[in-house]
C-alpha cells in the first residue's frame, strides 16, 4: 500500500507549565486507510508518549475523539487523512471548551447541563411489569426517533458560536435530548424539563445559526429540535396564561 507523509500541527497544553497552548508539529507517513486518530495514536505510541487525547471505539459510536481538524469539529476516527489536500493538518481541542491537557477538554460543564434537562423517561406512575410493555405506534416512534442518535460527542457545541459567546447556554445536544424525551409518548416529564428549557440559558438563547446540525456525525439535527422546543414552550406559556386551570 502506498504511503504519503503529512505534518500534523497538534495543540499542546501542559497544565501547570504552559500559560497558553502552543503548537507542535509531527511528520507522519500514512497509508491510504488511516484516519486522523490513527496518526495521533502513531505519534503517541512511537514518537511522543506525552501527547494526550481521548478516544475509545474507533468507529464513530462512543463520541470520545471529537477534535478540531483544520478548524472544523470532527470525529477523528472518521476523518481520513487522504481527505485533506494540504501537507499540514491542524489538530486542536474542541473549540469553546476549557482545555485540561493537550487535546483533552473539560466536559463537566456539559454533563451538568445534560443532567439539568433530565434526559430519561419520567413517569408519574409506573405500570407493573406484569401489565406488559409501553406500546408505541410507528408514528409515535417517528416523533422522537431522529433525535435518539446523539452520542454526546460535543461537535455541535464547538460549531455553535452562541455557546462560544455564552458558555452557560445549555446547548444543542442537551436540548436535542430534552426534545427527544418530551416527544416520547411514554414520557410524562415535560413539566420537569420546562424550567431548564425555558430558562434564559435554554432554548431561547439559540439564535439559529444552524451549524450544530451541519457538523453532527449522526444527523441528529439539534437545530430543528431547539426550534421545535421554542414553539412548544411558547404554546405552553400561552396556555398557562389563557387557561391556567388547564395546566397539567
Amino acid at each position, binding site marked *: 500500500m502506498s504511503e504519503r507523509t503529512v505534518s500534523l500541527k497538534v495543540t499542546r497544553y501542559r497544565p501547570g507549565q*504552559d500559560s497558553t497552548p502552543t503548537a507542535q508539529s509531527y511528520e507522519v507517513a500514512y497509508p491510504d486507510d488511516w484516519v486522523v486518530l490513527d496518526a495521533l495514536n502513531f505519534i503517541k505510541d512511537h514518537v511522543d508518549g506525552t501527547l494526550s487525547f481521548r478516544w475509545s471505539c474507533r468507529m464513530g459510536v462512543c463520541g470520545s475523539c471529537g477534535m478540531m481538524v483544520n478548524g472544523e469539529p470532527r470525529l477523528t476516527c472518521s476523518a481520513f487523512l487522504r481527505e485533506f489536500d494540504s501537507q499540514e493538518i491542524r489538530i486542536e481541542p474542541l473549540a469553546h471548551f476549557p482545555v485540561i491537557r493537550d487535546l483533552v477538554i473539560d466536559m463537566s460543564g456539559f454533563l451538568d447541563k445534560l443532567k439539568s434537562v433530565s434526559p430519561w423517561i419520567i413517569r408519574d406512575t409506573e405500570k407493573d411489569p406484569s401489565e406488559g410493555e409501553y406500546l408505541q405506534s410507528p408514528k409515535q416512534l417517528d416523533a422522537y426517533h431522529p433525535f435518539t442518535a446523539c452520542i454526546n460527542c460535543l461537535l455541535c457545541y464547538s460549531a455553535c*458560536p452562541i455557546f462560544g459567546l455564552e458558555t452557560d447556554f445549555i446547548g444543542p445536544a442537551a436540548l436535542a435530548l430534552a426534545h427527544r424525551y418530551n416527544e416520547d409518548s411514554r414520557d410524562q416529564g415535560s413539566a420537569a424539563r420546562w424550567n431548564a428549557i425555558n430558562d434564559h440559558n435554554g432554548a431561547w438563547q439559540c439564535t439559529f445559526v444552524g*451549524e450544530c446540525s451541519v457538523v453532527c456525525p449522526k444527523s441528529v439535527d439539534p437545530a*430543528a429540535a431547539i426550534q421545535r422546543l421554542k*414553539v412548544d414552550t411558547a404554546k405552553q406559556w400561552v396556555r398557562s396564561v389563557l387557561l391556567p386551570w388547564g395546566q397539567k
Partner: protein
Amino acid sequence: MTRNRPDPSLLFHPRMPGNWWLRKRTYFLFIVREFTSVFIAAYLIVFLVQLYQLGNGPGAYQAFMGQFASPGWIGFHAVALAFAIYHSLTWFYTTSIVIPLRIGAMVAPRYVFTLLNVAVWLAVSAAILAIYLIW
C-alpha cells in the same frame, strides 16, 4: 455520587476572537441575517411615523411623503427591501424546520415547504399590488 472535576486553576479557557463571524460563510450569513433586523426595525419606525402623519391631515401626509422622492430615502427603501426579502427567505426556511410537512406517512423535503411559503408570499403580494393598481 460525586464526580472528579479538574482543578479549575489548571484549565485553559479559550476566548472567541472578535472576528469569529468572518471565519465561516454560514457564520457570516447568520450575522447578516441578524443585521437585517436593524433595517426592518428602522423601516417600521418610518412606517409608524407615516401613519402618524396620516392622522395629521392630507397636507402633513403629502409633505412627509414628498421627502421619499429624495435619493437618500429611495436608497434606504431599496436596502430595507433587499434585507426584508433576505430575512423573509431565511424565516421561511426556519419555518420548514420547525414544522415538518407531512404527506401521508412521509415527511416532505424542507425545500418543498420553503417554496410553498414563498409561493403564498408572492401570491399575497401580487394580490395586494393588484388591489392597489385597480383601486
